[in-house]
């Protein structure tokens, strides 16, 4: 008799996800699937819209990382208005966008670590879910909870000063930006009253890293043993191999660190990447064409980025990067939960970049937009908090969008998330007849490591109903758990 265990919805991730675990006759896990059952349809309804509307329209996909969509779309349109592919903007245009982007990475990573993941680290993966949430953290570790809130606030302030408002701004326009930074705005961010200034953010980001490493030392066996599997990794890197979250060339490596996509121009991404549709999920499965469907899937996001780049161009993050890389002897790190570690290195890197940018006089200059010869097609890639984000548009002679293709970070991570869940399920559920709390949690923890935006829509955190069903092959309900 085969059994099916369903976990839905998954908590502390953005949006809805449902997990089905199929057991075979001997109660071994036969197959695990993460279903994405939401459908957004943005690619269809931007058709016909004027192209300059895309950065503002498409960012409505998401309330957590709208800036990434805003900028990826703007970068694609830079190409269309003849402003080059990432290097053609004015210094003010490019640096304002970078500031916006690193502010976004900073706030999103802070949100993820402090609000979504820290409950697991601080209170234990097997703690009662009633207290294992951000409220539990606030009650038991008020200082850390405050840091989380303030770091997020700082990132949001940066977005507000660059995009016009904290969520769904309008800063990036085709060919540049619609505002510069005033000296006053710069000073607020650079030298604001404690804790809301760049130096404090760097200090706190370092603190968060130390906190994680300390946790890791004490729980090494658990962290390393949790959903380890080799994979390919893909990200943008700067032309010289440095980590760059705003712009670069596309690189992919295999689990041994060999380059399988050698720093190519992302305008040609479709030559290298294809998407597969599977009938049980609305989310597609991208893969590298050269390796095929079975072997060509890859991870994106913090872990992939730290694996793909050769170095990090800010000193404090670079030191952390060296330590991280030494841990796996310079080889790619394939430990799923080390994604948190990588994310915190990026948090620190973002804080350093923000400070450097704020000291740059270019931000205050007036030359905001460039335009050249218009073309009818453009691709914009960016490293969003959750990984590489692809925007691709075509327009007609009347300036209307005729085609849009978006590959969002979570889609890129579709197969890895499925792999992780499968790994956990195999380890913890095989031979089990009942759904236990740690089993449920483990599945969620695996998904959460990717910080997925399953619907690119937000929900109240912490208290989302959990529904697990144990169903036999003849459709009978054997066990049903509801939180």
């Amino acid at each position: 008799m085969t059994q099916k265990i369903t976990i839905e919805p998954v908590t502390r991730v953005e949006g809805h996800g449902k997990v089905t675990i199929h057991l075979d006759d001997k109660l071994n896990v036969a197959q695990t699937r993460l279903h994405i059952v939401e459908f957004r349809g943005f690619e269809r309804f931007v058709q016909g819209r004027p192209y300059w509307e895309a950065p503002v329209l498409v960012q409505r996909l998401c309330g957590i990382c709208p800036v990434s969509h805003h900028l990826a779309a703007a970068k694609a349109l830079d190409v269309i208005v003849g402003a080059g592919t990432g290097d053609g903007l004015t210094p003010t245009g490019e640096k304002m966008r970078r500031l916006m982007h690193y502010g976004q990475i900073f706030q999103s990573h802070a949100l993820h670590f402090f609000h979504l993941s820290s409950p697991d680290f601080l209170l234990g993966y097997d703690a009662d879910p009633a207290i294992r949430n951000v409220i539990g953290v606030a009650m038991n570790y008020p200082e850390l909870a405050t840091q989380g809130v303030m770091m997020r606030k700082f990132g949001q302030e940066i977005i507000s000063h660059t995009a016009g408002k904290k969520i769904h701004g309008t800063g990036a326009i085709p060919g540049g930006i619609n505002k510069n930074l005033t000296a006053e705005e710069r000073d607020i961010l650079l030298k604001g009253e404690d804790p809301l200034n760049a130096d404090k953010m760097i200090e706190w980001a370092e603190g968060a890293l130390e906190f994680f490493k300390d946790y890791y030392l004490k729980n090494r066996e658990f962290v390393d043993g949790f959903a380890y599997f080799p994979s390919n990794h893909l990200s943008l890197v700067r032309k010289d191999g440095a980590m760059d979250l705003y712009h670069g060339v596309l690189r992919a490596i295999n689990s041994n660190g060999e380059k399988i996509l050698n720093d190519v121009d992302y305008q040609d991404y479709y030559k290298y990447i294809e998407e597969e549709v599977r009938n049980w999920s609305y989310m597609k499965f991208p893969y590298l064409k050269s390796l095929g469907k079975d072997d060509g899937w890859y991870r994106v996001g913090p872990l992939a980025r730290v694996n793909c780049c050769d170095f990090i161009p800010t000193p404090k993050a670079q030191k952390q990067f060296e330590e991280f890389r030494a841990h796996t002897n310079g080889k790619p790190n394939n430990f799923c939960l080390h994604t948190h570690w990588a994310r915190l290195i990026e948090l620190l890197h973002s804080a350093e970049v923000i400070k450097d940018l704020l000291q740059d006089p270019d931000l205050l200059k007036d030359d905001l937009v460039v335009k050249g010869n218009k073309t009818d097609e453009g691709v914009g890639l960016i490293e969003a908090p959750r990984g590489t984000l692809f925007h691709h548009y075509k327009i007609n002679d009347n300036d209307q969008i005729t085609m849009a293709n978006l590959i969002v970070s979570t889609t890129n991570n579709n197969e890895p998330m499925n792999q992780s869940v499968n790994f956990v399920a195999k380890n913890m559920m095989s031979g089990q007849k009942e759904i236990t709390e740690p089993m449920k949690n483990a599945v969620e923890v695996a998904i959460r490591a990717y910080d997925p935006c399953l619907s690119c829509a937000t929900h109240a955190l912490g208290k989302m109903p959990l529904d697990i069903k144990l169903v036999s092959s003849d459709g009978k309900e054997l066990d049903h758990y509801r939180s």
Partner: protein
Amino acid sequence: MSEKVKFTIDGKEYEGEKGRLLVDVAAENGVYIPVLCHWKDVKPAGSCRICTVKVNDRYMTACTTPIDANMTVENKTPELEDIRKAIVEMLFVEGNHFCPACEKSGDCDLQALGYLYQMMVPRFPYAFERRELDAKSPKIFLEKNRCIFCKRCIRMIKDDKGRSFFAFKGRGKHLEITIDEKLAANISEELAQEAMKICPVGAILRKEVGFSTPIGQRKYDKVPIGSDIEVLQK
């Protein structure tokens, strides 16, 4: 010599030239009467009805009513404010207005009136009328979903021979704004920008310049609509 007459608005006495439009005289005296179709010195259309006031206890549109001696005008009363709010709601449900991605957001008179009258959920059902876009002209993008049929463009945007670039087509619920393709092919930069400016909503857009005004610097980001008139109050 033009004759001066005295009249009252909401109990306060004002003076103005007999025969001039109530809405203009009120504005010059710091009294804001909302308008959508009216534009000073352009022949009034009286089509939107948002300027509805009570003159000697009768409903009138302030943009078509000349002032006269002994007129008693009611303007800012709860009854009239609710009528205006209802008109704003009707305009919202009648077209397809999605402010979040509209580049006129923050500069839009209809949106600003929605805020002024604290419109939440319209009391009328949405029509969800399907309307086409017209993107064919080289400088102007016509977003018919947002047109509120104020006729400003038809009355004001004309070539040097006096021909209108814009016209209405159809009747009733099939009424739509159109642009003359041949004329529009040669519309001047100035006139294209003027058309976008005078359109009270985001129906007429100058192509390729979207979202160039940052949030915070748009017309109604800091002060509600009508504030520029009310500061003139003596």
